[in-house]
């Protein structure tokens, strides 16, 4: 069993209004060091596969067809437990 961590974020060219609102709020609370915030989603998948190579195509398909909307978002993934 593999544990795979997937991160999905809005693409850098797309305005992240939630991130902006959080930035303003934390700076308002005195955290002046925070210059930017981007919000994303984090998924942990338990994948029934022996290694990353054998699961790669399936994970890519999951990321592009389901976990992210490629029109808006980028993703990265890594195996965190094997």
């Amino acid at each position, binding site marked *: 069993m593999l544990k795979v961590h997937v991160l999905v974020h809005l693409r850098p060219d*797309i*305005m992240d209004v*939630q991130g902006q609102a959080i930035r303003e709020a934390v700076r308002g609370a005195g955290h002046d060091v925070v210059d930017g915030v981007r919000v994303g989603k984090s998924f942990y998948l338990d994948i029934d596969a022996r290694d990353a190579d054998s699961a790669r195509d399936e994970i890519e398909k999951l990321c592009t067809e*389901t*976990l992210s*909307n490629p*029109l*808006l978002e980028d993703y990265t993934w890594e195996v965190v437990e094997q």
Partner: protein
Amino acid sequence: MSARWAVVVFPGSNCEQDFVTAVRDVLGREVVEVWHKDEVPEDVDCIAIPGGFSYGDYLRAGSLAAMSPVMQSVKAHAERGTLIIGVCNGFQVLCEAGLLPGALMKNTSLRFRCIDVFLRAEREDSPFTAGFLKKGDVIRIPIAHGYGNYYAPAGQIGAAEKQALFTYCGADGRVEDSTNPNGSVMNIAGVTNERGNVLGMMPHPERAVEALIGGTDGLNILKAMDREGAKA
């Protein structure tokens, strides 16, 4: 011949009865409700994908509904030329299903907007406006959404502009930043597929079907669908 209607229902849909009431009681047509695990019957002429929070808006608004079994039959209907309208969450579902260009994001204001808006017709070749709207005409319909910010990436922006059917405008028909309630690119409120038989729009025509509740501009869209759907 009058058109037969279907309204698709997902767990979390909450505007399906508005559609059923508008079609059955106001328009006087036969309408079937189709659960997300079933198929839309083949002999249906018009399909409505209603608003709400299908699957709790989990993952992305409309994304899980787009993968549900009923959508295979909706896609088959789209290919056959059946008239399909997706409103609010239904618009999000149709984008996520790849039946319409673009995607919907959080409103730039981060506020849920629940107001009447003015819409300008951008085309007059559409079965959704045939016989009552010419290009530039203005109608008034309510919106109620937090995820209505329409976006099309570089590769789809041309299609979105060409296929835009409604834009957010003022009472005088002027399309400006100040008349954009959610940050949508080019003020787009409603867009069709290339063939023109699938429409997604954030405003709710099914909530503007009787003078008593604020106007009948929405009913005219349903009437146009009904006439054109019955012809096909």
